[in-house]
């Protein structure tokens, strides 16, 4: 009896060993342009912004960083070497743009390493030609790690979430890598459809009615369950309408009308230091699930970059945790590029 009790007190590992283990298995991620706050698995990041403010580009950038390997045939790509799962609710994902960005990143890393060795222009070109079949092999490997699924309504989304565990398990067995990133493009995509369908109640009493609130709670519950078995970083985008002072093209009455409509599903943020520049429309279940929130929007300025390149500049602001800094970035062929 005494030996059993003593066995209880013997430790498995010290706190320092545990910290070392956790930091190697679950590293902090610093993804530009979200480099201000380190992100870890289990965090739920929400990217908020009006239409066409490069939110999807930030997701694609994160996915590419995730699927690239750290080291491949002597060239350092600086990726994580894990799989990424992209759930497309907006159904606007352009796979050609994604492959373009991936190719540019691969070529940039390959060129970067060859220039480090110090070869001449001719040598680096010849080396690039030699590396081309390697690049295609690497490209194919990376694309295999990118999982994509698209849903056309909330019931398909819920069905996907419920069966995602088995799919991820299968991927883990086939490829031997874990899924590290769950990307949801536009979590509020079916908001209006769900709100509209709540006025049609189901006939039988024992099923839950198809309310916006219920759908959101179910989504959060499924993602929570999934995170228990497959620890991942969740990133979701959300399209919002910014208030009057942020965009000159919005009619004033539009914004005021939205504030006036009584919506029992969204929480009113009344504290003066947390004035959101947009109207929050997601139900409270989702709002409390989010751990980090970022606001992006396009500015009217353009970055003149050569003859035909005119890239617009975007502003990024951390809302949760609230930071006072504003980051500027632009989107190029190689991805998101921070300006300041």
């Amino acid at each position, binding site marked *: 009896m005494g030996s059993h009790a003593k066995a209880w007190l013997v430790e498995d590992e010290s706190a320092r060993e545990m910290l070392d283990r956790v930091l190697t298995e679950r590293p902090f991620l610093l993804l530009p342009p979200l480099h201000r706050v380190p992100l870890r698995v289990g965090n739920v990041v929400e990217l908020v912004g009006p239409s066409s403010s490069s939110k999807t580009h930030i997701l694609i950038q994160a996915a590419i960083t995730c699927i690239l390997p750290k080291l491949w045939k002597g060239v350092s790509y600086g990726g994580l070497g894990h799989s990424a799962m992209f759930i497309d609710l907006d159904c606007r994902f352009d796979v050609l743009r994604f492959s373009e960005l991936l190719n540019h990143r691969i070529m940039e890393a390959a060129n970067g390493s060859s220039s480090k060795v110090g070869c001449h222009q001719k040598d680096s070109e010849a080396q690039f030609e030699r590396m081309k079949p390697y690049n295609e092999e690497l490209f194919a490997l990376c694309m295999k790690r990118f999982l994509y699924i698209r849903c056309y309504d909330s019931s398909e989304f819920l069905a996907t979430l419920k069966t995602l565990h088995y799919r991820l398990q299968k991927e883990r067995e086939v490829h031997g890598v874990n899924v590290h990133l769950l990307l949801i493009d536009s979590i509020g995509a079916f908001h*209006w*459809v769900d709100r*509209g369908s709540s006025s049609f109640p189901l006939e039988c009493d024992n099923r839950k009615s198809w309310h916006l609130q219920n759908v959101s709670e179910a989504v959060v519950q499924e993602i929570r369950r999934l995170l228990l078995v497959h620890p991942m970083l969740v990133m979701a985008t959300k399209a919002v309408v910014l208030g009057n002072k942020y965009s000159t*093209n*919005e009619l004033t009455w539009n914004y005021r009308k939205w504030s006036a409509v009584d919506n029992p599903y969204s929480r009113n943020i009344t504290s003066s230091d947390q004035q959101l520049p947009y109207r929050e429309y997601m139900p409270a279940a989702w709002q409390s699930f989010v751990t980090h929130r970022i606001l992006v929007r396009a500015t009217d300025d353009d970055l003149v970059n050569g003859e035909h390149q*005119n890239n*617009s500049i975007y502003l990024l602001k951390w809302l949760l945790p609230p930071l006072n800094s504003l980051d500027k970035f632009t989107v190029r062929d190689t991805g998101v590029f921070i300006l300041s």
Partner: protein
Amino acid sequence: MEWNCWKMLKGINMSFLLEFKGLICCSEMGPSSSGKTQVCLRTASNVARNHMVLYLDTGNSFSPQRIAYFLGKTISPSSAQAKNQFLQKVMSNISCHSVFDIFAMFDVLHQLESYLRCQDGRGGCQMRLLIVDSISSLISPVLGSSSTLGRALMTSAGYLLKKLAHQHNLAVLIINHTVGGEGGSSKPALGDSWKCIPHSRLFLSCDRGSNTYNVSILRHPSMASGKAARFVI
């Protein structure tokens, strides 16, 4: 399937290439008489040479004579009979439906979906283009300010079009109007909820008193917004 929009609109100064990929919904907007219907008719006449086209007309603006005119300009002079045969073949590839409210459009789209599901896999002439001229006249009557059903209908219509485009390799071309905004500037109709639905958005305008039109990109998955070009029809 990829084809170049500007190859179809001949007589234009190409300053850049706009590609319509087979899966993308494209929404064109512009003030009145900015050439939107003309662009649609021109596109339809070019695509109909080899593929089938469905034209959903909400304002009786479809004109077979104009399509015949576009086709007549491009074929080489030959016998009247050969010309007629060619015209007949191409015109039979275009089907035009008049829809005057959103429920009629849903009806037609669901019928199209079941038709395409049967057609998939069989060879021959496939449907490749769906034109909706114009979606704002279908959706604006249901978009009230207090009811949520209008926006729900608009979003479901958008998703149905995207589903058709993706599952059956269609290119969908949608016409939208502009309305007056703050300070006299114009903004696209149907509001911000519609902005999230099409893949690419183009803005058409017409120079007063001349035949030249301007088109600029408002949103595109792989091209920077703001690029513009001029063309004549």
